[in-house]
C-alpha cells in the first residue's frame, strides 16, 4: 500500500521490529517431561517485549501523528506477529522479511536483514526505530543494537520514557541503568534523530492531554479495523527485494553457531536437607523455632 508523502520538517516516521515468540503464559505454554519447552505444543504470539515496543511506537503516532511501520524476520507464520502489532500501534505498513536462506541466522545475520528492511520503509526515511529489550526465547538482546549499528542510528537502550522535539529533530529520553552492586539510575539523554530505541520492559505509554486521549481512541479504533484486514498492509520481502548480499545473512552470515545443548548437571548438593511432612504439626513447630533462631535474637541493630 503506497502513500503519497511530502516530507515536511515536522513529519515523524517510526518503525518497530518485532518477533513471533512462544507464549509462556500459564495455560498456553507446554513443557516436556525434562523441563524443556515443547515448541510444537506451545502457541506462538507477538513477543511481550515486541508488544511493549509497539505501544511505544503508538505513543509517537498519538502524540506526533507519526507514520508507523512494523517489520519482522521470520517464516510465513510470523505474519500473525505483524497483525498483533498492528492492533497495538495502528501500523500503516507491515513488512515480513522471509526467505529460506535467512534460516539459521544469529543476531548479526538477523541485524543485516532488518537493516535492509528498515531502509525499504515507504514514506521517507525512518527517524526512530523501536525494538523490545530482548526476545523471551532467545533472550540475547543483541539484535536491536546490532541493527542500530548497521543502520548508523544512535542507539539508546533501556528507554523508559521519550519525547520528540519535532522542530529541532531531537529525541529526549529517560533510560534506566542497572548495574549490579549499585543503585539504579535514571539518566536523561538527548540525541538528534535518527535514533534506535530499545524499550525497557517497564515502559508504559502515558497520554496526558485531552486531545491525546481522544487521538488514542481514534487510532485504537482504526487499528482494530486495519488489523482485521492486515494483509492489505503487508509486504513480503525476500533477499533480492531487500537487496542484500546472501553471504551476509542466514547461516552463511552468522559468526556464531549453537554447538550443543545439554542438561545443566545437578550441582552437588551443598546442603543436607531434612525432609519433613507439611501436615505434621510437631515438625512444623520445630522448623518454626529454627526459623526464629536463624532470624536471631542475637542480631540487634
Amino acid at each position, binding site marked *: 500500500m503506497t502513500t503519497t508523502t511530502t516530507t515536511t520538517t515536522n513529519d515523524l516516521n517510526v518503525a518497530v521490529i518485532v518477533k513471533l515468540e512462544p507464549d*509462556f*503464559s*500459564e495455560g498456553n505454554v507446554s513443557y516436556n517431561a525434562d523441563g*524443556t*519447552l515443547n515448541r510444537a505444543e506451545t502457541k506462538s504470539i507477538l513477543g511481550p517485549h515486541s508488544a511493549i515496543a509497539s505501544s511505544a511506537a503508538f505513543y509517537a503516532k498519538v502524540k506526533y501523528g507519526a507514520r508507523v511501520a512494523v517489520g519482522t524476520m521470520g517464516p510465513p507464520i510470523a505474519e500473525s506477529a505483524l497483525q498483533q502489532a498492528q492492533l497495538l500501534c495502528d501500523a500503516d505498513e507491515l513488512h515480513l522479511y522471509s526467505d529460506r536462506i535467512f534460516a*539459521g541466522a544469529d*543476531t*548479526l545475520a538477523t541485524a543485516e536483514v532488518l537493516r535492509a528492511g528498515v531502509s525499504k520503509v515507504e514514506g521517507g526515511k525512518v527517524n526512530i526505530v523501536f525494538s523490545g529489550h530482548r526476545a523471551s526465547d532467545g*533472550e*540475547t*538482546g*543483541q539484535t536491536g*543494537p*546490532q541493527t542500530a*549499528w548497521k543502520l548508523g542510528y*544512535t*542507539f*539508546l*537502550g*533501556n528507554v523508559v520514557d521519550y519525547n520528540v522535539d519535532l522542530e529541532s529533530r531531537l529525541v529526549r529520553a529517560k533510560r*534506566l541503568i542497572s*548495574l*549490579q*552492586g549499585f*543503585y*539504579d*539510575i*535514571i*539518566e536523561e*539523554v538527548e*540525541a*538528534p534523530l535518527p535514533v534506535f530505541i530499545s524499550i525497557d520492559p*517497564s515502559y508504559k505509554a502515558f497520554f496526558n492531554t485531552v486531545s491525546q486521549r481522544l487521538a488514542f481512541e481514534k487510532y485504537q479504533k482504526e487499528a482494530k479495523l486495519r488489523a482485521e484486514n492486515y494483509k492489505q498492509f503487508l509486504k513480503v520481502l525476500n533477499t533480492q527485494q531487500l537487496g542484500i548480499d546472501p553471504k551476509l545473512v542466514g*547461516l552463511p552470515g552468522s*559468526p*556464531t*553457531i*549453537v*554447538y550443543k*545443548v*545439554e542438561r*545443566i548437571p545437578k*550441582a552437588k*548438593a*551443598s*546442603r543436607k*536437607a531434612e*525432609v*519433613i511432612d*507439611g*501436615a505434621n*504439626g510437631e515438625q*512444623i513447630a520445630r*522448623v518454626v*523455632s*529454627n*526459623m*526464629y533462631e*536463624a532470624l536471631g535474637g542475637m*542480631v540487634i541493630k
Partner: protein
Amino acid sequence: MKASSKYQHLYVVVEHEDGMPVPVSLEMLGEARRLMDGFNKKYSSDEKVVAVVLGHNVRKLCEELIFYGADAVICVDSPELQHRRNLIDTKVISQIARSRELVAKFSNASEFIKPRYMFFAADSIGRHMSSTVLAELESGLASDINKLVIEDLEIKHEHKTKGQSMKYEKTLEMYRPDFSGFLWTTILCLDNRNPANEREYHPQACSIIPGVFAPSERDTSRRGTVVEYIPEFDEKDLRVRVLDRKIVKSAVDFDSHKAVVSFGKGVKDSPEQNIKLIAELAKEIEAEVGVSLPISKKPFSVSESTNSTYMIPDRVIGTSGRKIAPLLYIAVGISGAMQHIAGMKESGFIVAINPDENSPIKDECDVFIKGRMEDVIPLLLEELRKQRPTIEVKK
C-alpha cells in the same frame, strides 16, 4: 609465535561507577586470568589479559586492575567519556580493538589485527555495548554466559566446514543457560572455512553474567602495563548529550531485610490466593518477597495490583536478577533451577516448601517441607504467631 598471530589476547571491557569497578568487572578479570593461564600453559604461549577502561579520572582504577589479574590496561581518560554513551564508546573500543600500536606497548604485535577473545559485562550497559562493538568488528557475540572453556574442537558443520570435519584450535566454548534454567546452550564463534564463503571471525566475544565467576585475590605483587590511549573524536560521535542522572530507589529492598520469602511457578493452581498467602507469611516474619525468573514474565492471570507488585524483574532472585544472602530464606513452590540457586545459596537458613520431593532445591536447603503451600503456609503462620518471641528485637 604460532602461525596465526593475527588474533591475540583477551580484551576485557571494564565497567565502573563512582571510581569503583562494578563487581562483575573483577569477576570477568578473574575468569580471564584463569582461562589465559590455562591457555598459555597448554599452548606454550604468552597471550595477555588486557583490560580496557573508558572514563574520566580513571588512572587509579586502571592501576588497581593489574592487582586483579590484568597484564595490561588500556586507559582511555577523557571528560567526553565520563558517562557511558553507546555511540562514542563503541567507536573508541573498536578503535582500540583494531590498534596494533597499542598492542606493541605490551606485546609482540607484528601481525596483530584484532583480539582473540573479548569479554563484556551482561548488564544494562555491557549488553548493548558488546552488541554494537561486535557489529562494528563484524564478529560473533554470545550473551549471558556463565561457563567458559577453551578447547581444540573437531567441528563438522553444514556451512562452516561444508560438512567436512575440521579442527578449530583455541575455540572459546561459551555456555549460556536458557530461559527454562535447566539447559545449557553452548555457542561458538567460528571462522567460515566453506570455500564458497571464507571468512575469519574474531574476536570470539561474550557478555558475562554478574555473580557467576569469582574475582582473583587482590595481589599487589602482580606487575603489568598501563597504556594510555588518546582517542580521536569525530564531532558527530559526541552528539548524545547526558542531561541528568538521578538515583532511583527501588520499591524492592532485599538488603535491609533479614528474611526473604520467594515464590515460583508452584503458585499456579490459584495464583492470586497463593500469592496472598505468601505475602501474609512474609509480613509475619518481616521478610521481603522475591520471585523466580519465570514469574517475572507474568505467566499468570492475576489482578493488576498483584502483577505490578510481584511479577516484576526487580524481585527476581538469581543470576538474571539479584544475588542475596539473608539470614532466613524460604522458597515456596520453587523447583530450584541453577540460576535461581546461584542467587540465594549463600543464605543462612534455607527452607523449601514444595509438594515434589524430587525438586532440585532439596539439595540446596536445610529443611524441605513436603506439602502444598495452601496447606503448609497456614500451619506455619499459626505456629509463627504462637511462637512469636515475647521480647521484640529492636530494629
